[in-house]
């Protein structure tokens, strides 16, 4: 029992580290595509946490990614922090809902990607009182589908090689 618990904890720590690293690498080396669209590489770790460990663990990985990622970039509690936080909250909620509905990994990834972009746009529109920002949603909706598919494929390839620690009651 203790070994199992420790293994889960190790997976969680590892996935959090992967999420933070991917988040930082993406923000430093891979700029936004067409000025607004990001790949969302850190979502690979979130999807892995969801499928290998469970919903609670995915939330922990996502919170760690936003808080520690922003802390390391020096943007904690700034506008960037709240914007990425809003994206993560919405995408986490959508992914948990889809997980409860037994959706496929690829579909969860695509919807998570769309929700992440939408959450960010909505909070920017709210913070800057720019209802016109909603027009970007259409670009993001179309752009998030290929990025979601890409992230989902990568996550699926990784999951094939790792034994899930998730129990049925994690749902």
């Amino acid at each position: 029992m203790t070994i199992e618990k420790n293994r889960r904890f190790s997976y969680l720590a590892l996935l959090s580290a992967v999420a933070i690293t991917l988040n930082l690498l993406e923000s430093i080396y891979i700029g936004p595509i067409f000025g607004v669209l990001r790949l969302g590489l850190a979502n690979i770790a979130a999807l892995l946490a969801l499928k290998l460990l469970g919903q609670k663990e995915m939330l922990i990985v996502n919170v760690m990614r936003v808080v520690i990622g922003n802390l390391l970039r020096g943007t904690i509690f700034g506008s960037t922090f709240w914007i990425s936080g809003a994206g993560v909250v919405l995408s986490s909620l959508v992914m948990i809902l889809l997980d409860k509905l037994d959706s496929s990994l690829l579909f969860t990834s695509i919807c998570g990607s769309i929700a992440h972009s939408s959450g960010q746009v909505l909070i920017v529109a709210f913070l800057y009182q720019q209802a016109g920002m909603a027009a970007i949603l259409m670009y993001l909706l179309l752009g998030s589908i290929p990025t979601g598919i890409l992230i989902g494929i990568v996550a699926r390839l990784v999951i094939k090689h790792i034994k899930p620690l998730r129990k049925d009651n994690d749902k």
Partner: protein
Amino acid sequence: MKRKEWIIIGVLVLLGAAALLVQKLRPKGSGYVVAIQHRNQIVKEFDPMVDAVYQIDGDVGGLEVEVKDGKWHVINEQCPNHVCAQMGWMGIEDTLLPITCIPNNIVIFLEEGNR
């Protein structure tokens, strides 16, 4: 992916494409005014048909907006992300797409009401 999921994705793609098409086909008038907003205040308004360069102060050093041939873009931005400059040239056809510099708290957008 399940069949039902493919259908949902297909519907989303169609919706997005239809909305983009509607946006592109919207009638375009003349007499546009572009506004530059810092925090909650409009600090500059300009006519996109008048070529100029405007210097705007922001939270982390500010930026410049270059206007040429009815289009505008951000240059010499003093911010860590450079996303605003990477957004490139915006024109009247991109009616609802604002240029946003989050570190500087600056938004450059087309004022619809002044059309």
